[in-house]
């Protein structure tokens, strides 16, 4: 049963990722990325990472994807001569298809070869149905306290840097 769910969500994620690759409309690509993130969140749940799945949905879908769609809208080329009878599309063509296909297939085959031939020796037991939130909270506040603080400082720096970069410093526009 879980295996069927796993295959369903994995194929959902991979098919929508392929749709991102093949679609010409950038807005469609962004929404396909949304579906991919949901599929990956479902895979997290199937791997027993409930907190991480909720985090994935909140940060990626609620934050990053909205930001990406804002970016698409702010940078699209408006064709001022065209009458507004046709549908608005944000087109993004693709180039270098053959080298990309070769590189991607080579990467995938290399990873598959490594994974199949790795022969992992798993030591611990698989966790069964226990929530991970308490463990994550205790670990973050004890043994991972320094990375936690550094992540906070990194987010502050990124916030200030992004706001400073996106400011309009062109004097002709003021």
């Amino acid at each position, binding site marked *: 049963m879980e295996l069927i769910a796993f295959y369903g969500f994995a194929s959902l994620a991979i098919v929508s990722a392929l749709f991102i690759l093949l679609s010409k409309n950038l807005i469609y690509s962004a929404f396909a990325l949304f579906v991919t993130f949901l599929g990956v969140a479902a895979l997290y749940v199937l791997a027993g990472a409930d907190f991480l799945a909720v985090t994935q949905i909140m940060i990626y879908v609620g934050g990053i994807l909205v930001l990406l769609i804002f970016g698409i809208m*702010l940078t699209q080329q408006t064709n001022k001569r065209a009458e507004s009878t046709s549908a608005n599309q944000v087109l993004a063509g693709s180039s270098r298809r053959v080298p990309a296909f070769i590189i991607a297939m080579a990467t995938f085959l290399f990873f598959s070869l490594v994974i199949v031939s790795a022969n992992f020796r798993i030591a611990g037991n*698989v966790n069964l149905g226990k929530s991970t939130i308490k*463990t994550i909270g205790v670990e973050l506040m004890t043994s991972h306290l320094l990375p936690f603080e550094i992540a906070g400082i990194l987010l502050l720096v990124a916030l200030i840097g992004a706001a400073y970069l996106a400011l309009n410093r062109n004097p002709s526009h003021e």
Partner: protein
Amino acid sequence: MSDIPLIHFLIVAAALFSIGLAIVVTKKNLIGILLGIELMLNAVNINLVAFSRHDPERLGGQLFALFVIVVAAAEITVALAIILRVYGQYGTVEPDKIDGLKH
């Protein structure tokens, strides 16, 4: 939860990573390239979470995946700000046309 073999997670993650790499190489739009980078970061997180199943006491993989998500959020904000500056400077977001340093 234990009847999904570890190798299935790894193969799915490898496939998603390869598709993300292909997106990064092919897209003719800077934001399309960012979509591919996000996909690759997510594929790496699947590996970390899959290995973390076998470490329920310390959950090192899940904590690492959490920090990867934080860094991805920081990266995407700064990258979008840079793309907005580039768009203001060149009027395009197509990476092949942004060649001001070549001349």
